[in-house]
């Protein structure tokens, strides 16, 4: 299944300086995520109707589909970011390891801490150094760490995000001084520092050049054993490169956004069951 993952020059021929440094996360095990009958509204406008998706632990799931079909909205429902928008409402359930994250007794902040998010546009905190950006989540969640643990955490997260070797000599420089691709990997490192069980990525490479995109894809491949990843992408090749499972979203004229087909990425791309999926993955529309 990891066809192109291992083959397509992941390590670029040369051994990666970051890899194999014995840096293993000590966080929680990756968790499965199950969405059941999710609907979403912005004001009076419904945008998603009865979407169900199952994300197995320690896998990469790609959400594909044309613009405006609700992929990002669905992704934001998975970590309760949707409700931060004015007038946004949802229905349905989202289970993290079998527990409804929208259920009573679940604190919003805890949910978001366990289900991290990387955004389309890199958004490091510009007033903070690279090191402070990595540990920003600790301050935000009032997690106290000792000084030496903090140093270790910074190295570990930057290494896992594939950025350590590029920034280790300038950790006190502002995060905003990095290139776009580096900023995005810094954002991934920042998300990893709060030990999420799931990481959601909303078109993380759409603002990046091909080289940076490849670096992020390498990072995703290295992370997937430790954290479950759900990625929205407009790039079909990217979906086949990074994901094991995929879901095709579509909002046809006159109907609401939803999943047309989901399953193993290889099956979805090579033997789509639905004609619309076939048309889309073969570039006939969208």
């Amino acid at each position, binding site marked *: 299944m990891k066809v192109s993952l291992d083959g397509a020059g992941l390590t670029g021929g040369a051994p990666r300086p970051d890899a194999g440094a014995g840096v293993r996360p000590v966080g929680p095990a990756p968790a499965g995520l199950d969405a059941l009958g999710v609907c979403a509204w912005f004001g009076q406008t419904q945008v998603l109707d009865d979407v169900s998706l199952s994300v197995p632990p320690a896998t990469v799931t790609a959400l594909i589909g044309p613009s405006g079909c609700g992929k990002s909205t669905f992704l934001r429902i998975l970590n309760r970011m949707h409700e*931060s928008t004015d007038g946004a409402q949802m229905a349905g359930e989202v289970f993290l390891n079998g527990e409804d994250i929208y259920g009573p007794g679940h604190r919003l902040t805890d949910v*978001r801490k366990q289900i991290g998010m990387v955004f389309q546009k890199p958004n490091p905190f510009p007033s903070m150094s690279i090191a402070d950006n990595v540990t920003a989540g600790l*301050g935000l969640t*009032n997690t106290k760490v000792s000084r030496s643990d903090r140093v270790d955490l910074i190295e570990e997260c930057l290494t896992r995000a594939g950025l350590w070797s590029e920034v280790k000599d300038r950790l006190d420089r502002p995060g905003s001084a990095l290139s776009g691709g580096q900023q995005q990997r810094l954002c991934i490192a920042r998300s990893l520092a709060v030990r999420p069980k799931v990481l959601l990525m909303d078109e993380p490479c759409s603002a990046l050049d091909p080289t940076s995109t490849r670096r992020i894809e390498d990072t995703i491949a290295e992370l997937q054993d430790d954290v479950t990843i759900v990625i929205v992408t407009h790039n079909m090749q990217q979906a086949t490169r990074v994901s094991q499972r995929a879901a095709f979203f579509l909002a046809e004229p006159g109907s609401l956004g939803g999943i047309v087909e989901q399953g193993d990425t290889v099956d979805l791309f090579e033997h789509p069951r639905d004609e619309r999926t076939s048309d889309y993955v073969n570039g006939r529309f969208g």
Partner: protein
Amino acid sequence: MTTTVDLAPPPAPSSDPRTPRRLSPGLQPSDRIFHGGATVIGMVVLALTGAIGLFLGFQSIPTLHYYGLHFFTETQWLPELNKIGIAAVLVGTVEVALVAMVVSFPLALMLALFITDYAPKRIKSWLISTVDLMAAVPSIIYGLWGFYLLQPHAINVARFLSQYVGWFPVFHVDTDPNAAVWQQSRYTSSAFIAGLAVAMMAIPLACAIMRGVFDQAPLGEREAAMALGGTRFGVARTVVLPFAKGGVIGGTMLALGRALGETAAVLIIISPAYDIKPRILEAGTQTTSALIAGNFGNATKSQLSALLTAGFVLFLITLAVNSFAAVFIRRSRSGAGTEI
């Protein structure tokens, strides 16, 4: 009527091709009219402010010529005895303004943060218009409010402060705070009470500017902080406040400029006293603008010149504070798009 716009000027073969070309903005007639009108209005504002400054400056010449540096070191204002100076008045002005700042800064900051980051949507607009309404209340009303409603209660606070932190010169009052029958009049008409009334006027101004910059905090960074599990306070601390630092300082400085010049409310509350003293809780102080307002009515020509000189000094101080605020806001990240 047709307008010909010369789009293609004839080539000038004699000029060096490496010199930058003169580019004409190529404005439409409507643009030209608006451009001209806006320029004139802008210039009029500058000219008016400059003219006020020049007028005050010219009027100050006789006074400054006559009294020299003594005008700045003399504390008393006794034209009959030919003793005139603004040392005590300037200290009083600064004291009232500082009390107003210390009170209004935290209130305005929290109010602005509540409006942008905490308040439910329905309350938000209601709250914004209420705060704006605070700015529309005439200052004389705040003066009456301060004198009749606030003062009877504020003197208890003043006495409490002088009882417990009176060892600190700022909070000392020259009377026995523990006396069985305490001397209430020693606590009235002070810089403290005037400052409280001025704070009410400074709050809406500072709050409006802070709200403006808080609202500009980038959504991407806010969402990043939220997605990390941040609380609202965490988002405010990590994203909004660092972003808005320049705007917060600039807004505070603008409010300070307002507080320095406040007249009517101060005039009602304080009782004039011309001593340099740090004791803000004690009865009696004087500010520059209250001095002018209280004395110009029966001033002789030379006294008027002295009052205008005091006004000139206040004008320069306020100008400096506001210019500093403007520079600060413009240089900060949050202020890049804000003009104050």
